């Protein structure tokens, strides 16, 4: 037998291992040049007949598209320079995407080399796995105008290789007007003060880089703090000091009383309670008030509404009975102080007749396993997986396997009146065309089981789950402080970092450590100095809209505002066919007939009710016009059964009427200046009818002013 074949057998494997690794050397070139962005070939349908995975999320598909499809027409192995892959971005031939690569650049040289070596995917691509990206600095404070720094990125691979990939990493400022990043050198210049984020992207990983330039040299002291809330105030104050933003002083007792009452119970404090609180000299009066509110039935009602919005509880046609069961069950969980983890597990694993088993209605909220996966991830993980339906998430870690794997967990759930887990039911993975395998997102595929929801629930509520507790405490923080540590609150991801990452982490740990007790975390936040700050700005913190240097005012929710109007006027609103006097926050069905709630902009709960902060503050033109001119206020102010009529009939003086309405609507006594103003305006009318008309105008003015329609 001749021996020459031995040489051949030895040489072939060597020859097939090219120096250039497609996955780790070629794809970063395409990403850096912008070829695989959503606006270019990374679009869902590609561009110009050439489709790449978004930001190189699927190297196998990209290799196929570049080197194999259409008989390999995009690479020319005989004359690499003539490859379409190079001729297009260098504009050697017409390219709709324009000039993307310098023909003399090292990037082009690398791709050319790859083609020259056979345009293989490379054996190393299979052996070497990108592990993580390290950027430096991860956070920096730059003082003085015109300050700059140079970023660096190092990639670490599974075979132990570490390589400087600064030149191949895409650095993108979230706000290009605030930061300037040179794409070649990664030199970064700050254009204006504030906290800014740069997103670094290399292969499948994205990382945020925080750059701070103080607004001023002024620093407000870090809170002396103490006790349980110390970590909250220390975190908030430290960032304020770094940014040079002064903090406003503490709100007065009246403001605090109204604020905490609205935040914890969705109700205005009653005039008697206000008087009592303002007369209390106990240094612990605020804590006592918080505890009293947390223990109230009003808290149960209001936080049932809050969770009902999160769970998107709404009646499907013909399923009002189910929704009533669901709502009643939820209220029971709140009243009995059941942990949020238990609530989550109950709904995730529920089955049975939805007219009998309240939490089973969770599976009638949306239809279809993919929608259920999206809903579940947004609700319990604060994460938007939906991008990963069509491609790996461009700004997060989620892959299509994660999305369709989570959907597969719900594929067997029958979503009729009786929720049951069937023996069959699949979700097709669009990339493979095969049945998706149930998967814990970002973790592992699941073994065959009768009900994979159990494994999902166990994972979600485990103490080391990185999403569940964070998502909830961020929402609780937002409910109390007016803005989430992460905004939007259902979009937690590495590239949307929290303003106070350590605070979010510590709050989550504390939440877990206290058995996912909502009341505990709410109490913690309400007791902090940061919570009790005045909404009045001081010089230097007027522009702050996210660092909690002062209280952020927020519009009252539609249900809360409707109840507040009824409470102040003592004229009830009727909702649908419910009994007169039913409070809006206790309504089960968000679709119940009510023009008042419609014009105030209630959420139908068909989709998420979590709105961005700016939208929330606006309130909308329709709402304002109805408040100014509509029957919502005018008819009820003129009612002969309300608070105004009662006071006038009792012979109350103008001063008493004014003071009573101030306490009822604004939760504070009328000030001396206001008292003088109203006396001058209202005292001169002797005719009772005329006097009433003037007082009605006064009430109208009170109920349309910003101080009333906001929680501040």
């Amino acid at each position, binding site marked *: 037998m001749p021996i020459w074949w031995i040489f*051949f057998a030895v040489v072939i494997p060597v020859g097939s291992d090219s120096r250039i690794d497609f996955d780790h050397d070629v794809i970063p070139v395409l990403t850096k040049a912008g070829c695989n962005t959503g606006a270019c070939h990374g679009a869902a349908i590609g561009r110009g007949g050439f489709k790449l995975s978004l930001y190189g999320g699927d190297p196998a598909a990209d290799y196929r598209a570049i080197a194999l499809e259409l008989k390999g027409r995009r690479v020319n192995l005989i004359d690499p320079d003539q490859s379409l892959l190079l001729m297009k971005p260098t504009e050697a031939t017409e390219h709709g995407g324009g000039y993307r690569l310098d023909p003399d650049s090292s990037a082009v040289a690398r791709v050319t080399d790859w083609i020259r070596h056979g345009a293989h995917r490379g054996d190393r691509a299979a052996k070497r796995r990108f592990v993580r990206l390290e950027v430096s600095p991860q956070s920096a404070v730059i003082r003085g105008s015109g300050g700059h720094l140079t970023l660096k990125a190092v990639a670490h691979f599974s075979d132990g290789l570490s390589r400087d990939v600064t030149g191949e990493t895409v650095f993108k400022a979230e706000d290009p007007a605030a930061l300037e990043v040179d794409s070649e050198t990664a030199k970064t210049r700050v254009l204006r003060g504030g906290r800014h984020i740069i997103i670094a992207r290399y292969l499948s990983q994205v990382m945020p880089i925080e750059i701070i330039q103080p607004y001023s040299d002024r620093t407000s002291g870090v809170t002396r703090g103490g006790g349980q809330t110390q970590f909250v105030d220390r975190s908030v104050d430290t960032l304020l000091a770094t940014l040079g933003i002064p903090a406003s002083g503490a709100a007065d007792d009246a403001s605090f009383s109204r604020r905490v009452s609205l935040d914890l119970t969705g109700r205005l404090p009653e005039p008697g309670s206000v008087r009592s609180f303002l007369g209390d000299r106990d240094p612990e009066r605020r804590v006592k008030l918080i505890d009293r509110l947390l223990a109230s039935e009003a808290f149960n009602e209001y936080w049932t509404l809050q969770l009902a919005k999160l769970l998107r509880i709404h009646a499907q046609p013909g399923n009002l009975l189910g929704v009533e069961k669901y709502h009643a069950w939820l209220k029971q969980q709140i009243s009995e102080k059941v942990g949020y983890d238990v609530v989550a597990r109950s709904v995730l694993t529920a089955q049975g007749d939805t007219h009998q088993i309240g939490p089973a209605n969770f599976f009638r909220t949306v239809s279809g396993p993919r929608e259920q996966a999206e809903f579940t991830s947004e609700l319990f993980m604060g994460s938007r997986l939906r991008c990963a339906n069509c491609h790996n998430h461009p700004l997060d870690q989620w892959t299509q396997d994660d999305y369709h794997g989570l959907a597969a967990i719900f594929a067997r759930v029958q979503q009729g009146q009786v929720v049951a887990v069937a023996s069959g039911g699949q979700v097709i993975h669009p990339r493979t065309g095969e049945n998706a395998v149930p998967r814990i997102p970002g973790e592992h595929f699941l073994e065959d089981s009768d009900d994979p929801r159990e494994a999902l629930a166990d994972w979600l509520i485990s103490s080391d789950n990185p999403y569940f507790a964070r998502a909830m405490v961020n929402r609780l923080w937002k409910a109390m402080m007016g803005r989430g540590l992460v905004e939007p609150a259902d979009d937690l991801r590495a590239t949307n970092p929290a303003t106070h990452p350590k605070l979010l982490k510590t709050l989550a740990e504390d939440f877990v450590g206290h058995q996912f007790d909502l009341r505990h975390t709410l109490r913690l936040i309400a007791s902090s100095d940061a919570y009790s700050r005045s909404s009045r700005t001081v010089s230097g913190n007027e522009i702050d809209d996210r660092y909690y240097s002062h209280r952020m005012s927020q519009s009252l929710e539609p249900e809360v505002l409707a109840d507040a109007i009824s409470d102040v006027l003592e004229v009830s609103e009727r909702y649908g066919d419910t009994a007169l006097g039913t409070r809006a926050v206790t309504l089960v069905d968000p679709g119940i007939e009510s023009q008042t709630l419609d014009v105030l902009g209630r959420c139908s709960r068909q989709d998420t009710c979590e709105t961005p902060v700016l939208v929330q503050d606006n309130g909308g033109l329709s709402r304002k016009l109805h408040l100014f001119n509509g029957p919502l206020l005018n008819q009820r102010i003129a009612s002969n059964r309300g608070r105004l009529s009662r006071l006038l009939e009792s012979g109350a003086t103008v001063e008493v009427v004014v003071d009573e309405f101030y306490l009822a609507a604004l939760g504070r006594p009328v000030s001396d200046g206001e008292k003088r103003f109203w006396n001058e305006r209202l005292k001169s009318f002797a005719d009772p009818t005329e006097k009433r008309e003037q007082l009605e105008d006064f009430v109208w003015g009170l109920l349309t002013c910003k101080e009333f329609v906001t929680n501040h």
Partner: protein
Amino acid sequence: MFWPAYPWSTDPTDRKDRTVFGLAGLGNMWQVICCNVWMWCFGVVSLAIATEPPITALAFDPDGRSILAASQSGLIEHAWPLLEPQRRMGSSLVSIHSLAFSPDGSKLAVGGGTPAEQGVVEIRSWPEGEVLCTVDGHSDTVQSVTWRNNDVFATASLDHEVVLWRVGETHPIRRFRGHSKGVTTIEFMADGALIASGALDQNIRIWNVETGELVRTLNNHTRAIHELRKRPQVNDSQTRRLPMLASVSDDRTVRLWQPTIGRLVRFCRLDVVPLSVAWHTNGAWLTVACDDGSVRNIHPDTMEVVNVTNAAQAWLYAIRVHPTDGSLAVGGREGQLRRLSNEQIVPLPITMP
């Protein structure tokens, strides 16, 4: 010089299959090995073997004595069945994607061009191989060329068009416009009265050749269509078959159509992507070449995959059936031309129904 598929064999006739690398300019594998050894010794391991460009098109010469293989390195004629390279024909085309002999075997159409710039067809005399004329009427490469008769042929291009040409004329007879993406394959039917075109837009369109009208669209495929092949008619007065068109697609299906009435007759779904399709000469078997390097034999009456032969490790772009001996030629990404014997690929006796 013949290069056997199995290097331990010294007898080229003891194997049923044959493999040859189309190493342009090197000529024989001893030179390759010597070169590799030299490079190995001097540490130039990454250059140990030059990568051959993929074989993108195949065509048997009309008498079946040789096979033409096209790639970015040009056009090479190999003797059949030993696959010895016989001659290399230079071409002005940067890429070649299709080869087709005229019905009388006197002309060879070579379709291709420069990607994203130009689609060209060279008409060559056969067996001389000299370029008689070229037609340049597409703005992207010609992916498929087929003859209507000895003078008229059609081209399909990634510029979305199908064009009808007459040999010797520079202006086309007719353009067929309607596909929304590149056209990858065409086939004349009904004695040249109709032409079927398959495209990246997932559709097969049937056109009236004389009027240019779109007769119908066959839209059951859900991804790009790679190739169409009509079932050969048998010169047998006892056997009269309906016209049948086979299509292979990125959706992993092989479909059989009765294109004259627009009926999807039957189909099968594979676990790999079929890239090229060929009918055996009597139309009794259908063979597809796939993206995993396998060749699969399918019974057209049941669409059952009868056997699978692993012919390569990578994508196979072209498969053709020898006109008389029934064996197969395949080529693909590895730049490797390979013969598969009749016994290998069709284990069952081939008899006319």
